[in-house]
């Protein structure tokens, strides 16, 4: 399965933010999306999540044949966690499991999901508004993973986690990557190099893959920085 993007364009007034993106993202890989501030990473995610109308081009899922993306195909984890504050963690999960019944594979009990995310027993029945930033982020990540979307868009998801949880999340992402296309936007190059299978750079409105064969870490870093500097 692939996410195929062809000539995707997005303008804000006269400013061309995405100038014709052509790319194929493959299942089983984590893509690290790098780009300078304002390069359009979030805009690209918003386009793929159908929050923004495109100004040109298309994207689709290629699975033997091309088909348009449906809502269930996409999970989008924002950098600022958004969870319904009036529900408890358990109620939120219950609701999510019920409306995603068809998509969830091998459904587990709610507590098993909490265990999977290392959320303490004492926190499970608290209102989400009383969760810490990091815990809200975990919940957001969890429901997106439960829904089992083909494509997971992660917008700087690890920045609010402490080092231990960040490490857990990295392992978790690696463990689920075989069934998904994961696109991971970040500003931390070390994280991208450590976690991701491919590095793609969004620069001057186009996506470019950084070829990493035969390069050691330092050389790869230099190459990425050079690419990002070409502004």
């Amino acid at each position, binding site marked *: 399965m692939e996410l195929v993007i062809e000539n995707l364009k997005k303008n804000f*007034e*006269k400013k061309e933010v995405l100038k014709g993106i052509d790319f194929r993202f493959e299942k089983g890989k984590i893509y690290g999306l790098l780009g300078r501030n304002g390069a359009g990473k979030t805009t690209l995610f*918003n386009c793929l*999540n*159908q*929050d*923004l109308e495109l100004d040109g081009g298309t994207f689709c899922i290629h699975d033997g044949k091309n088909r348009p993306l449906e*809502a*269930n195909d*996409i*999970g*989008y984890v*924002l950098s600022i966690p*958004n*969870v*319904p*504050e*009036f*529900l*408890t963690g358990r*109620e939120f999960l*219950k*609701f999510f499991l*019920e*409306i*995603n019944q068809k998509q969830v594979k091998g459904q587990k009990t709610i507590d098993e999901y909490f265990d999977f995310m290392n959320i303490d027993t004492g926190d499970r*029945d608290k*209102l989400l*508004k009383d969760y810490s930033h990091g815990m809200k982020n975990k919940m957001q990540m969890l*429901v*997106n993973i439960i*829904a089992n*979307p083909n494509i997971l868009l992660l917008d700087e998801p690890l920045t609010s986690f402490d080092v231990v949880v960040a490490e857990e999340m990295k392992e978790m992402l690696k463990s689920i990557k075989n069934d998904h296309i994961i696109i991971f936007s970040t500003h931390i190059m070390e994280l991208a190099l450590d976690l991701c299978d491919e590095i793609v750079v969004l620069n001057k409105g186009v996506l470019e893959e950084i070829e990493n064969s035969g390069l050691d870490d330092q050389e790869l870093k230099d190459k990425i920085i050079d690419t990002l500097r070409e502004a």
Partner: protein
Amino acid sequence: MLNTFTISFRLKNTYKANSIIYSIKGLPILNKILPDRLYKSGGLKVFANIVSVLWEIIGTFLGKFLYVLLMLFLMATLYDTNQADTFLHIFTLLTVIGAISNTYMFNPTKDKYYAIALMNMDARKYAISNYAYSMLKVIVGFLPFTVLFGLGVDVPLWLCILMPFFVVSMKMFAIFYDIWRYKSTGVVTNENSLDKFRWIAIALLLALAYGLPLIHVVISRTLFIILLAACLPLGIYGLIQILAFQDYKKLYKKLLTPDNVYMVKNASSTDVIRKNMEKSIEYDGSATSNKEGFAYFHDLFVKRHRKLLTKSAQKQSFFLLVTIAAVLAVPRFMPEAKEILNQITLTFLPYFVFIMYMLNRGTTITQAMFMNCDHSMLTYRVYRTPKVLLGVFKERLKTMISINLVPAGIIGIGLALVLFTTGGTDDPLNYLVLFVSVNAMSIFFSVHYLVLYYLLQPYTISTELKSGTYKVAQVLTYLVCYFMINLRLPTIQFGIATTLFCVAYTAISLVLVYRYAPKTFKIRL
């Protein structure tokens, strides 16, 4: 000093001009045509600057004009005491109130916050130069009107001219007290949240200002002149202390917290609404739900927002019951009212459109739905699938309608009862029409607000209301309902027409929601 003042004045003008451009850009259609470059556009900037300067000039004079006219001049003519003395009497006492409650210096405005807290301008220079400017505005703004209206009630010209200086002196002396208090106790006065002693003082002074003339007691002219003579040197002393005080930076650091700046002055700011909405969530662990899927989700939303959603409808219902009971009792004591009441039920139905508009809490409810629920849920793509979205919509519609139908039902029955007890009607259809049409109006408003919300979803991810179309739709709703106040139409015709309109509107708008909401109901970016 002058330089600091010029910079701060230009800063204020710039953001005022920008907010004028921002509001222009917020209007439907115009926002599509006008580019972001607008903020740079010379012509428009000049225009916005002119508007902003005009506003400054109007602000200087208009408030003072209305104040002197309404609070002093017209009031002074109402009593049978000497008009000139009453004029001076009210003026003196209100000036003390103004000195306590309207300090300029201790008002945590955005101007000060931007300049001092955010842009790190020299606090002392800023405070003194801007204070001097505002005092100048007080004198210039007051003078024409104290002279005009003062002479109108035969106050001698020289006193009229000195009156604005009395105001300024009193204010400066009050500032001196506040600075002294800060120096000795560390407490900063915030004129937007006065302590209870000041409130009591204000209430007392107000009572003395307008109460004493009723019992023929007013400050004599001689006493006023003595007060004036005493106040001018006190003012000058205050001014010297204001100039000598050095610690404005620390003082403003305490005063200009974001909470002070945004909370009180601008109660509609999104942060405040969001915080209030968050506080409105009630949870004691017992409220759960046996339902499933979106019914479960919505049920919990209702249970956790009981106060916000149902309590006020209950209060309304109670209030309406008492009112109707009172109205039903009126003919017992005033038999002549019978006919008037009877006529009201038969011709005043259009007025009830406005009443139903006022009673409907659609805006608050949809706001709570966004802030506490959709703001987060809309970021999940699956929540926006037609099945879930319309499922939740249906549950919400049921709740909105049923909450608002309780007070509507009471009004409907109440009107029919009033009609019956005040002599009835030849056409019994009137009873039915009264009841049905009032309920139809209630359903209309519930549908209207929810549909507007689903079709225009006006909020951004930072919970800011961004849609000009939504604002225009709200204003139009208000205007149409307001217009109805003046209509007098026979109940049967108007009631049937209204009911038919409500049914048609509901049907059409539900079709629109089912067709378009999956596309329109998303976070504004």
